[in-house]
């Protein structure tokens, strides 16, 4: 008959009938081993000094502040590039030697909608960046 372990399921039947040989360490032993290891680990490896972290945080804070300050400029640059591209496209269309088909109402409406969306997006980004830098 195979013996059963009354407390845990960990173990194998021993050489004599009715005996039980535990194969896994109990919880307390595991906890103790972990804590001993942790104590030795923290004794051997000291964390970096707090001053290093304060310095790193300060450096990052400055970098983020610069990024925030530069964001409106980037947006305006992108907007300028977009406007220049639009103007060039319009000029090419207007003064092209060949005759292109005239813009129909749907295309015109789509163009206006896209431009409005782009402008609204730029305004929202500018507004957001102003709010975070405040």
């Amino acid at each position, binding site marked *: 008959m195979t013996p059963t372990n009354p407390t845990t399921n960990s173990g194998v039947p021993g050489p004599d009938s009715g005996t039980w040989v535990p194969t896994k360490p109990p919880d307390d032993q595991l906890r103790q081993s972990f804590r001993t290891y942790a104590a030795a680990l*923290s004794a051997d490896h000291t964390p970096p000094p707090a001053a290093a972290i304060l310095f790193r945080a300060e450096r990052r804070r400055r970098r983020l502040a610069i990024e925030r300050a530069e964001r409106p400029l980037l947006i305006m640059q992108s907007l300028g590039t977009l406007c220049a591209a639009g103007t060039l496209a319009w000029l090419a269309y207007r003064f092209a030697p060949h005759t292109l088909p005239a813009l129909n109402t749907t295309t015109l409406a789509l163009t206006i909608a896209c431009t409005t969306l782009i402008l609204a997006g730029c305004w929202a980004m500018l507004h957001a960046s102003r709010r975070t830098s405040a």
Partner: protein
Amino acid sequence: MPSSLEHAATTAASLSELAFQRLYEANATNIHSYLLAVSARRDVADDLLQETFCRLLLHPQSTSHLDSLELRRYLFRVATNLLRDRHRSGDTTPYADPPEPTTNPTPDTSLDIARMLQALKPRERELLWLAYVEGMDHAEISSATGLNRLSVRTLLFRARNKAKQFLAPVGGSR
């Protein structure tokens, strides 16, 4: 001579620095050991510890309402998330330089634990460390790791069994 406003600002800054140093002294060693045990690399542990506390310093408003225990759990959560980010980014070269303690009075146990941790998955290492070293219960582990409470229970049970298998005496069933 500095004006009263400047003086107040200086006092506030030095106070917050003092508070940070106190908080750091209370938690840094534990979090550092946790990061060392899970990542098994000193450079990674140092870097992630700095990043954890940096985030705390950069977003003070999100932690101002927390008490010391909640703050501790918050720090462990940030550290855990950073470990997972590192793991997801593909930097999975653990145990290149296993941090084996040298001042341990019982080197065999320590070696066993180090070897056992090597064999476990990062999540299992996290759970076991939080449960056995930090003494957290399921709810605390859940809040420190972002896992569901029931998942913590199941995963911890499996991890514990796996750990016990690894630490079983020679000749025992594996």
